Structure formats: C-alpha cells, structure tokens
C-alpha cells in the first residue's frame, strides 16, 4: 500500500486542542445544573468487617439533607466481568477494604452532605483482615473475604500447557529459575472521578469521567433495574484515565439513584484520597519463571507462574490473571509453554487494569530472566533475545496470531541511536535493553456476544459532515483519529468534520477506551462508513456528468442528497475469530500486536542508591502513524509512566490504610525527574489495521521498566528483581554483593499454590492461517 495520503501521517493538532488550552472543555465536575445537589459517600474505616447496623436517622434530620441511601436501596450486585458480579454500589452486609462505600447523602451543599455522612452511625463486627498473598493462601482466621472462589481466599486459578514442555526442558542445555515481584501502583489521573446525574421524564442521564460509557450504561441498567432505553450515559471531557476509569463505579450508580429519589440533579466528585482507594490499578504480582535453552541460545521451553494480589473484589481480575501469562509467546518464539496463574482476594482496594493490563509485571520478569540466562550462556543479552524474536505472520504455541511485527527494526533503531554495543563501560554508568508487545484491542468482548466492537455512522447534509461513534476520547486523541480517517476518505481536513462521541443515546456502540482498541476498531469502522459515503458522493457526481475530483465537497453533497435523499452511512468492526480451541483462550488474541524496543541509560550512585536516568531511546512499531504527533505523545507518556513505576510509584498499605494517599507522598515523576526521550516510530503497515495502524497507548510503557533494572545491573553488577527499584533496594543489593552474598534484591521464593490439573493444549497446525486466512 503505497498510496498518497492528504491527512493520514500528518502531525496535525488534535481536533479539540483549542478547548483544552483555553479552559473551555467541560469536565464532569465543571457541570453545575440548576438545583444540583451534592453527594458525599460514607466509606468503611475497617479493612474487613461485618456491618451489624446502620442508623441514618440523625443524618436525615440535618437541614439541607435531601436523601440518604444505604445498601438496602441498591441491593443488586454488579461488576465489570459477567463472572464476577461481586460489588454493590453500597454495602450493607459486609465491608472488604478501607473505603468500601456504605451510605450516601445528597444535600444542598457539599459540606452539609459531608456532615451528614459523619452523622451516620454504623456498628461493625470487625474481622481479621487478609493483607498479603501469603495470608490469602492460608486458612482465614475469621472468614473468607468473598463467598466464591477458593480454597481459602483464592479468587481464580488457571493451569494451561501448550506443546511438550517436559520434552523441551529435557532437551535444553541449560535451565534457569528466577523469582520476581512487581509492587502494585495506581493510575493517579490528574482529574478526580466525577459524575452528575439527572432524572427527567422518567429517564436517567449521567455525565461521567469514564473510559467506557457502554459498560457504565449496562451496570446502571442492572443495578437501577431500568431498561437501557431509559438510561443515557455521556462521557464528559476526560481528565485522564490510564485504565482507572474502566470499571463502572459506585458513585456513578449512587448519583443516578439519588437523582431518581430527589428529582434533582446530583453530583459526586471523589476527593483525591477517595481516588487512591477507588484504585483498580496495577496488581502486585509475584512471579516464578523457569526456562530451558540450548547452548546456542534458543529457548526450548518455558514455565511461568504468577500470583496476583487482587484486592477485595473481582474487577477485571480474571482477565488480569490470564494476561500475566498470555503474551510471553508474542515477543519470543517459545516452542513449549506452561502457565499457572492465581489471583487472591485481600482486604485492599480492588486492583484492575492499568496501562498494559497484567502484562508489565511478566514483561519485567521475562526480560530480566532472559538477561540472566544470556549472562549464564556468555552471550550478549541483545543477541540472545534477537535469536528468539517471533517472526511476522506466525501463530504462537498458545494459538495467538501474529501479523505484522517490527521487533527487528525497533531493536535496530534503538541499538544504533543509543550506541548500546559501544557504550562506555565504567562503574556507576549503565545501559539496559528490553522489548515488548501489546494488543491492538482485545479480540473478545467483556460479555459474550457476536456483535461488532465498534460502530460508526456518518451523516452528510448540505456540505456538513458529522461522525457519530461511541468511542470515548480520554486525551489520547481518539476523536482526532476518527476525524482523520473520515477526512482522508472524503477529501477534507479533520477540522471540517463535526464529531458526536461517547453518548449512548446518540452514538452507535463502541466498547470504550481500553486495551488499546480504539484506533484499530473504531478506525476500521469509520473507514468502512466513510468509504460507503464516498461511493455515494462519487456516484451522484458522475451521474451529473462530472468527476468527483472536479467538484467541491459542497457540490458533491448537494448532488448526492438530491439523488439519494438523507445521506447516512454506517460501518462497523468485528474482530476476527482467531482464539484457540481451549478454555481461557479469549484473553490474549488481538487482531494485531504492536512491538517496542527500548534502551535506558542511567547513572547509579553506589553510596546512596539513587538512580539518575540520562536518556531513554524507544522505537515503537505502531503499524502506521495516523497522526505521528499523537503517537509520539503516547510513546513519551508511556515512557514517563514506565519510569514512574520503575523508580518510585507504589500503592502499599499499613493496617488496611493506604500508606500515602496524596499526590505529594505518592511519588510520581516531575518535570525535573523526566529525562530526554528519543522516539522512533516504526511503520510495518499491518494487513488488518486502518491504513495499517495498530496501537500506541500502552505497548511503549512495557519495555521501560525491565530496561531500567537491566541498566542497574550494567552499572553496579546487582540484580534488582523487584519493582519499584528504590535507592534502599539498590544499597541493600550492593551490601549483599560486598559481603559475598548473591548480588541481588528480590523475593526469596514462590508459595505453594493448589493449581488445578493442567489443561494440555495441542499447538496450532502449521498451516492454520494459510488454510483459512482471517479476513486479511
């Protein structure tokens, strides 16, 4: 495909850039409708307790209080995954983490609502909290956190084997085992979650800072027990998500219920402390990995085990568990692979998806583990990894279909630019290299159905073009991608296109901004709709005896409207059915995978353990950059967030309380901490992506974290097998090295987990995709 583009590939400003820099974009908390009531939520002070009684009578007597509700008013359970409907908007039987919502107040002023929350008397029977993976695997002292899953506080167990793993280890010349730990961290969006609801003419309307209007719509319908056609969910201007606004949240349901009760608009904006407890962020994951290799550096088999600390509820956790094991085979050619995964419940805020969802943790483990194997073999780590790179147009042993793959080119770009192989070798200075891969959208929907994952309508009337799509722009620029695709096809510029997005009443479905799916899926839907519209315009112009290129767009649209009547076209995108024939195969397949390679250069201070990142080089195979400016922005933002996770960010608890639920104490990189980033966009022109595009929002985060740890080894000769790589861990590893102990900081072992019998899956036949090409 060597066609000339007029919009695609151009570094154009975002279509909404002006509203974002002038303060005119209306975020959920900026809305104040006439007669709005303010809502505050009473939350549990205990990590684990039974609720004996709730007395709201004093709160109700406070002047200005319009309504007080408890779990008895919202008893229906919900949850993002159909298999884990374990949450209530308000709990009235049991609380499972500090911050679990118990009651909510709507009042004329926020201060009155807060005072009324203080006036609600709750009697608890305090239970022993379960605060670690180890404690969750043991017999509970009082009772289990949830009444499903098990044994003990285990939520989910999985054991899968692909190909002949024992045979692979048997023919290996060298086998190595390692253990790693990735501490949990949180999204820290600049905007606190906010939602405002109205109830007019028997219909609920909710504006929210959500990444997924459709899933909020479904949860509201279920819990409010209203048909979906009586609920409208609109995505307000979005102040940052990173996965943290991808679940339906209690406050969204609560304001809708309070609006139904009071007949007035009700708004709830979480405080920053509440945002830390709302969480749904990165799971803490303990990992064990064993790999066999031949002496010339080819992987023969891998066995990977993960244990995820899930927090108190299911959230996306079942998917997160599978993701810790699914994508290992998408970067390296692993001929035989066994994965055993486990997620446990603990009395902490629930974990869920954060940028990279379940894959940064194993990526950290795998990259460092292979780095160590390369050292064992005496092969350069980059060369060793290269020998095992997956190839384009292949199927992995666990049936994942790889189409375009720019791993080699990405590696070449960062190797050349960073001078990695010719780097200066001196103590305290180091470089590290790592690669990664990520989905361009999950190949299966969250709830089972055969419908499209994204739908787009285009309306043309008298020269104007409006695009309607459920996609939610969370700042990454999905609106700009829709406008670029339609403008390209219709011979216009993005600024000529009007957009209506993320409104369940007026836009056709899109599943939302998660799993890096929007460019690929909404982009393809928009492409189909736009090409149909172009065909109508061309036909009408040619019927008038002229050529499309000779007339203005206005003329073409007038001719077409006269000829065909109302001009609307629709397009939709359904991912190909490429999942393997086994239970659990729904997590991992994607219509295409992005690839990244990264080099980190740092100085490490032996005395203090402080790391100073000098520079990061990153190359990202985006398929095609629909807008290179936005791709660079996603890559740079991913590098930033990866550095934060590598160096400082951690969500940890003491006695059930978050250790640092504030933006000052939860360390995140500032302007002063951020190094120079050299970004290289690699285009592999994916056969199924819109114009060949894949994804950019998540993949580039993944290699940064292991590259930092590899650079620490390069600089100081110590392995930090745990994230974040804080100064005290570096100093402790150096102390051990100086004493002649293992020069390492990290977990000491992996617990015994009662995995179920392994499900053995035959690898896919070699000619699978040649026999039945999936819509390429």
């Amino acid at each position, binding site marked *: 495909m060597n066609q000339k583009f007029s919009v695609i590939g151009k570094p154009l400003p975002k279509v909404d850039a002006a509203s974002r820099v*002038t303060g005119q974009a209306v975020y959920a908390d900026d809305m104040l409708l006439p007669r709005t009531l303010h809502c505050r939520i009473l939350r549990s002070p205990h990590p684990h307790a039974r609720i004996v009684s709730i007395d709201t009578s004093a709160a109700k007597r406070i002047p200005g209080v319009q309504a007080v509700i408890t779990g008895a008013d919202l008893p229906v359970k919900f949850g993002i995954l159909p298999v884990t409907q374990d949450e209530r908007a308000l709990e009235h039987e049991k609380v499972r983490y500090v911050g679990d919502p118990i009651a909510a107040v709507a009042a004329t002023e926020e201060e009155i609502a807060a005072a009324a929350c203080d006036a609600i008397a709750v009697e608890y029977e305090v239970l022993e909290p379960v605060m670690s993976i180890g404690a969750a695997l043991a017999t509970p002292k009082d009772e289990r956190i949830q009444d499903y899953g098990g044994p003990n506080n285990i939520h989910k167990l999985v054991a899968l084997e692909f190909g002949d793993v024992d045979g692979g280890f048997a023919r290996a010349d060298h086998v190595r085992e390692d253990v790693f730990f990735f501490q949990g961290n949180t999204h820290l969006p600049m905007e606190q979650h906010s939602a405002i609801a109205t109830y007019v003419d028997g219909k609920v309307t909710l504006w929210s800072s959500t990444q997924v209007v459709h899933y909020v719509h479904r949860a509201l319908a279920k819990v409010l027990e209203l048909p979906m056609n009586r609920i409208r969910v609109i995505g307000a201007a979005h102040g940052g998500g990173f996965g943290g606004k991808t679940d339906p949240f209690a406050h969204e349901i609560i304001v809708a219920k309070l609006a139904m009760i009071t007949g007035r608009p009700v708004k709830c904006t979480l405080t920053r402390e509440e945002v830390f407890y709302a969480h749904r962020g990165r799971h803490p994951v303990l990992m064990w990995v064993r790999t066999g290799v031949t002496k010339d550096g080819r992987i023969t088999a891998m066995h990977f085990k993960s244990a995820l600390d899930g927090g108190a509820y299911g959230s996306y956790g079942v998917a997160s568990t599978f993701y810790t094991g699914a994508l290992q085979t998408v970067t390296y050619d692993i001929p035989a692979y066994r994965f055993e995964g486990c997620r446990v419940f603990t009395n902490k805020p629930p974990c869920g998806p954060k940028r990279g969802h379940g894959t940064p943790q194993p990526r950290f483990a795998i990259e460092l583990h292979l780095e160590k194997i390369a050292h064992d073999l005496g092969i350069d780590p980059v060369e060793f990894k290269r020998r095992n790179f997956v190839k384009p147009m292949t199927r992995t042993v666990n049936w994942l279909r790889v189409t375009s793959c720019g791993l080699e080119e990405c590696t070449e770009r960062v190797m050349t630019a960073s001078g990695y192989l010719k780097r200066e070798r001196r103590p305290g200075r180091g470089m590290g290299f790592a690669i990664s891969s990520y989905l361009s959208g999950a190949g299966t929907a969250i709830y089972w159905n055969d419908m499209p994952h994204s739908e787009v309508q285009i309306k043309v009337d008298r020269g104007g073009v409006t695009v309607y799509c459920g996609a939610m722009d969370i700042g990454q620029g999905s609106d700009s991608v829709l406008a670029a695709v339609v403008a390209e096809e219709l011979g216009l510029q993005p600024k000529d296109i009007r957009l209506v997005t993320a409104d369940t009443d007026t836009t056709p479905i899109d599943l939302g901004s998660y799993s890096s799916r929007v460019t690929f899926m909404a982009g393809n839907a928009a492409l189909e709709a736009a090409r149909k519209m172009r065909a109508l315009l061309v036909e009408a112009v040619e019927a008038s005896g002229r050529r499309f290129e000779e007339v203005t767009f206005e003329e073409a649209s007038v001719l077409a409207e006269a000829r065909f009547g109302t001009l609307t076209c629709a397009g939709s995108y359904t991912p190909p059915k490429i999942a393997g024939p086994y239970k659990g195969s729904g997590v991992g397949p994607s219509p295409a995978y992005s690839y990244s390679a990264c080099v980190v250069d740092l100085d490490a201070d032996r005395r203090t353990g402080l790391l100073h990142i000098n520079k990061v080089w990153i190359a990202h195979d985006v398929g095609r950059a629909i807008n290179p400016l936005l791709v660079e922005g996603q890559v740079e933002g991913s590098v930033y967030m990866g550095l934060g996770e590598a160096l400082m960010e951690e969500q940890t608890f003491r006695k059930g309380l978050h250790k640092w639920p504030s933006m000052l104490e939860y360390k*995140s990189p500032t302007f*002063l901490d951020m190094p120079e980033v050299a970004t290289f966009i690699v285009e592999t022109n994916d056969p199924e992506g819109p114009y060949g595009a894949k994804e950019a929002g998540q993949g580039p985060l993944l290699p940064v974290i292991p590259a930092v740890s590899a650079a620490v080894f390069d600089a100081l000769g110590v392995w930090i097998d745990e994230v974040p790589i804080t100064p005290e861990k570096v100093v402790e590893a150096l102390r051990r090295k100086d004493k002649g102990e293992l020069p390492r900081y990290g977990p000491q072992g992996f617990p015994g987990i009662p995995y179920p019998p392994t499900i053995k899956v035959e690898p896919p036949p070699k000619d699978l995709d040649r026999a039945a090409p999936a819509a390429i």
Partner: protein
Amino acid sequence: MRESPADYARLDLRSEVERPVDRQVISLDVNGERRELLLPVHKTLLEVLREDMQLTGTKHGCELGECGTCTVLIDSKPELSCLVLPIQVEGRAITTIEGLAGGSQLHPLQQAFAELGAAQCGYCSPGILLASKSLLETNPQPSRDEIREALAGNLCRCTGYTKILEAVELAAGRML
C-alpha cells in the same frame, strides 16, 4: 471515626451544622473584571472561582497544594488557588486561564501547546500555561532546565512533559 450510635447521643449535631457561617463581602479583580461577592470566609479562591464565578477553567487535582493543577496568577505570579483565601487577594490582579487568550485569539503559549500536542487530556494545562506565562514574563528566553525548574510544581500524567517543554520553547521564540 465515630462508630456506634452511643457516640452520637453525646453530639449535638444540629448545632454543628447550623452554626452560622461567617460571611463577608469581598471584591475580586479577575481577568480585569471586578466582582463583589458575599462569601463564606473559609472558602478557598479555587472554590470561589469555580463555584461562585463559574470560572471552571481552573481545575483541581488535590486541593492540598500538591499538584499545581489549580495554579492561577496573582499579580503575574503563579499561586495555588486551593491554598489562597479570597480575602488575601482583594484588590490584586487575578488571572485565570479564561484571561489568557485575547478574545478568540489564542495566546502564543496556547497556540504552541495546541500545535505540538502539549495538552492531551488537558486537565493540567490551565495551570501549566499560567505558570509558563509567568516564567516568560520574567525570563523571555529560558533554558530547558529553567523551564523544568519553573514548572516542577505542576504534575502532568499524560505527556511525559516532553511536548510541554517543546511548546514553551516554541512560544518563547515566537514572543521575542
């Protein structure tokens, strides 16, 4: 944390919430417009701008003075509006993001931020734009390190800061 109904028997809640709130007429000069407002004295400038004056371009990220999101200019100097009481700034010139553009003409900083993709979700942008404006007034040709230093109190989670630095440099060049 109060936990049992018995605790509440000892509390006179009615007096707690019905205690008269001290209010005062305060005159504020925001974006060149003077407004007189009757305000509870404990309300922060951030709350007054957003709730009483509908200037919702000023955002909040923590309301504890930690993230820089609510930055406004007071007599051309960046201040955290969540830590300022209106009574402290009576008679002084307050500039919010709504006062940065000249009518519908974007300020060079806004133009550069838009062109270079320095605003992704845009939530931190008002505060960073105002802090940048103040920087360029005192130092029209800042080095990259001087920009980092001036903006170190403003967090951004989307951009990785790189495009913001480039945009401030572009605007500085155009404003010379």
